């Protein structure tokens, strides 16, 4: 998608959009390729998917950790002597 299309119908300036896109490019969310006078931008879906799975994984790790904590505080034999 080009900047011209992205800014269509919005009051955001081309400069502001470009700035945002550069930040997103820095973190790998979008990729820009030069086409003549214009840059075309595309979403990197794989990266987005990685980010989502990363959060899912950490979420599962917390589920496991809290189960361990529950066993630890509810079972006297798991506690310190």
């Amino acid at each position, binding site marked *: 998608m080009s900047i011209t299309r992205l800014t269509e119908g919005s009051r955001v300036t081309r400069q502001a959009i470009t700035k945002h896109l550069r930040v997103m490019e820095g*973190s*790998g*969310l979008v990729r820009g390729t030069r086409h003549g006078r214009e840059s075309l931008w595309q979403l990197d879906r794989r*990266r987005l998917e*990685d*980010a*989502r*799975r*990363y*959060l899912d*994984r*950490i*979420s599962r790790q*917390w*589920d*496991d*950790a*809290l*189960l*361990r*904590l*529950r*066993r*630890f*505080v*509810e079972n006297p034999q*798991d*506690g*310190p002597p």
Partner: protein
Amino acid sequence: MNTDRIQKKVLLRAPLKRVWRALADSTEFGTWFGMRFEGPFAPGARMPAVIVPTAVDAEVAKAQKPYEGIPFEITIEQMEPERLFSFRWHPGAVEPGVDYAAEPTTLVVFELEEVADGIMLTVTESGFDQIPLARRAKAFQANEGGWSMVMKLIEQHVRNA
């Protein structure tokens, strides 16, 4: 979808003092979490730790085994006795040889609330939006690599049996 935070709630059927000790005492925290700390927790303290297999769950302990001895650090933020315990850390910072010091941290907050049946514990980890995407993707791939290695070991074991 909120990509910045994870929140969990769990009901613990144990006295408030017991739950607080399991969080605020660095030895007890390490026992169920699977870390060994040097010294006691205190607000503002930087706590070096190493990963050790948890003493609470044999299966998880086995999964933690490959990471045993990997250094780790958490920085204690707040300690309000029997109410709130929080710290910062680098999530998933277990790749050997990577210096995470310059990267942003996430904030982990444990909140305790007395309810009729025990203690309602809420854990909130926030700040994920600040973690570089490349790091998040890499952490996932590293983990996936770990799993394929385990699968290979199981396969070998079954074949030799």
